[in-house]
């Protein structure tokens, strides 16, 4: 079967047919988000730009580019640049490589001189980052450095302070430290990428001398794919969950035929070890907040017998939902998505059987189905190289996500034992904290604006820098809502941002995580918004609904809250208003607020 042209391993056609591919992607007319991306290059960036555009379009991001003149990255950043100002970049990507390091230590240099050169080289870059950060409200992405193409001292280049390998290693650590201590700054790790690709091919001097192109052109699809993963992650396009097959995917053998005791897993055989290593790889994802589920054609008791083997790395507790039945896997996947309030496109479906993969692809066109072959020793790489879960920020919420989904499942069970829904809500003993944005939650708030699709009235995406700017501007009312109950803490789940103009407040963003649907949290947010509006002497609240492919559930949300519809255009965009009055009666009766 022919592999997807947009997924590794890449074929040359991606480069040759780029124009046609671009046209076809743009013709699909999906709901793209538009982003301005400035590429400041230390070498030729034309192909990088073209390839990046294809990968971003695939992710639903439609970029407009600013490209610096050849090798003008530093000048473009450091000197007044009206063209870049007018462009107003959302992302600034600095494409430098070891070809842009102009001085390396001399063998005769003293250690102090080498340290000084290291600091100077670092400051050449960090000074530029500082200036860009001050001037533009943009996310910065910077390549680190690949190892040099040759080594004067051979192996000693790695340990001797005068060696280029040693120098680049130290420089990369300084870049990494900057990334750790600065928000909205990400390292594009070409040091790893180039080793994975093959440093000799990556650094092929033919492409440098002929075209001033680094990496070599055949590596550029890999380069741009890796870069696009950072960008799609920043804009909340990461996957959220695994849906995993069992037989010959998590273990070797068919549990229904072979019996749990005869499965290949554990440390006794090479094949068993490969499956165990794959299980460990999947289990590690829980720490990133990725949730694991099973979709298997099996009798439930057989599936459980396999999972309960004592030498199994993954245990039943690691999964949120285990679907072992004979229904079509696509249907099981849709059911899981529905129960967890996720969309099917947030799942990565892993199955060794090409027929099952094909059915899921066909039934759920948005589903992500990696082309794993039937070799368990390569499962990890087949998934890992895709960058489905590329981490740009890791909030405390991520680490405890599995626990939250488990609590949700417990709530569903509790719900079914009540006949009166309000009595059920009261039994949850909910508490909410609803306040203006505070620094502690900015990363979570930015993450929510980029991830929430369903309960989201305007679907505006913001970076953490945007969020911080609004939090500090008195012309905005900002509210975050954090909800907990007797089963546990849901964390920050709702965001409202209002922009005050004269005596009117425009609600530019109202969103809520689907994990707290039907808990009356939206009413609690409304009550608090009304209170804040009263304090600021606002007379009218104006709400907006902009339809997308995913947010139909909130089409009449403002009507439900008692707003009057003022207008609606042909595209379904509607404007609503509500007067701020003293006799507003609180709508929430089941959540205790800020106590």
């Amino acid at each position: 079967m022919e592999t997807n042209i947009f997924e590794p391993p890449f074929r040359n056609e991606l480069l040759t047919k780029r124009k046609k591919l671009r046209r076809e992607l743009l013709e699909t007319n999906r709901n793209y988000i538009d982003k301005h991306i400035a590429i400041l290059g230390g070498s030729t960036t034309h192909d990088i730009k073209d390839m990046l555009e294809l990968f971003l379009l695939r992710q639903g991001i439609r970029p407009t580019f600013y490209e610096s003149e050849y090798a003008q990255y530093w000048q473009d950043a450091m000197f007044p640049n009206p063209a870049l100002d007018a462009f107003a970049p959302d992302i600034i990507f600095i494409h430098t490589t070891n070809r842009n390091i102009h001085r390396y230590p001399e063998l005769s240099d003293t250690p102090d001189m080498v340290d000084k050169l290291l600091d100077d080289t670092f400051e050449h870059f960090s000074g530029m980052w500082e200036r860009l950060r001050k001037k533009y409200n943009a996310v910065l992405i910077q390549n680190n450095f690949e190892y040099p193409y040759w080594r004067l001292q051979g192996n000693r280049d790695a340990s001797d302070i005068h060696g280029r390998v040693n120098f680049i290693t130290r420089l990369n650590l300084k870049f990494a430290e900057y990334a750790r201590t600065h928000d909205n700054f990400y390292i594009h790790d070409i040091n790893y990428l180039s080793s994975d690709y093959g440093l000799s091919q990556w650094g092929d001097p033919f492409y440098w001398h002929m075209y001033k192109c680094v990496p070599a052109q055949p590596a550029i699809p890999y380069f741009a794919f890796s870069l696009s993963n950072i960008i799609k992650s920043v804009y909340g396009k990461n996957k959220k969950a695994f849906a995993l097959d069992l037989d010959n995917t998590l273990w070797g053998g068919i549990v229904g035929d072979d019996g749990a005791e005869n499965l290949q897993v554990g440390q006794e055989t090479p094949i068993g070890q490969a499956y165990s290593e794959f299980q460990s790889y999947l289990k590690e994802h829980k720490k990133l907040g990725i949730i694991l589920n099973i979709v298997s054609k099996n009798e439930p008791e057989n599936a459980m017998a396999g999972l309960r083997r004592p030498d199994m790395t993954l245990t039943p507790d690691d999964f949120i939902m285990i679907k072992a039945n004979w229904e079509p896997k696509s249907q099981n996947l849709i059911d899981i998505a529905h129960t967890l309030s996720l969309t099917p496109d947030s799942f990565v479906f892993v199955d060794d059987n090409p027929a099952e993969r094909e059915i899921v692809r066909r039934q759920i066109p948005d589903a992500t189905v990696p082309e794993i072959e039937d070799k368990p020793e390569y499962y990890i790489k087949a998934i890992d190289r895709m960058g489905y879960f590329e981490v740009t920020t890791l909030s405390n919420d991520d680490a405890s996500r599995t626990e939250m989904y488990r609590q949700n499942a417990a709530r569903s069970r509790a719900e079914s034992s009540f006949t009166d829904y309000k009595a059920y809500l009261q039994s949850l003993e909910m508490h909410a904290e609803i306040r203006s944005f505070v620094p502690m939650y900015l990363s979570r708030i930015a993450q929510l604006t980029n991830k929430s699709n369903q309960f989201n009235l305007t679907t505006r995406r913001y970076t953490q820098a945007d969020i911080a700017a609004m939090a500090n501007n008195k012309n905005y009312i900002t509210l975050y809502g954090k909800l907990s109950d007797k089963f546990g803490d849901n964390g920050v789940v709702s965001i409202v941002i209002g922009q005050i103009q004269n005596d009117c407040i425009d609600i530019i963003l109202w969103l809520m995580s689907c994990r707290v649907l039907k808990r009356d949290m939206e009413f609690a947010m409304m009550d608090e918004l009304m209170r804040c509006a009263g304090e600021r002497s606002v007379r009218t609240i104006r709400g907006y609904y902009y339809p997308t492919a995913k947010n139909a559930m909130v089409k009449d949300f403002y009507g439900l809250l008692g707003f009057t519809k003022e207008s609606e255009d042909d595209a379904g965009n509607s404007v609503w208003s509500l007067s701020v009055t003293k006799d507003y009666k609180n709508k929430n009766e089941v959540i205790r607020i800020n106590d």
Partner: protein
Amino acid sequence: MDRKEILKKITEIIRDVFDDDKIDISEETVAADVEGWDSLTHITLIGTIEDEFNIKFAMKDVVNMKNVGEMIDLIIKQTD
């Protein structure tokens, strides 16, 4: 593969890269004859031709290449 077949293959590649099925290529064609054939598209053409014929051009070959005919000479030299 004879010269005619190689020319046909090169024509296909050029049509793909410029996304234009009407481009005609002969052995006498030079870069200036094709609109948009600049140093940037040249990289892609060279890389694709290397990939297609499973050959590797030396820098000195590419630098001295005058027209499509000379490119075919080089391909024949490496594939024979």
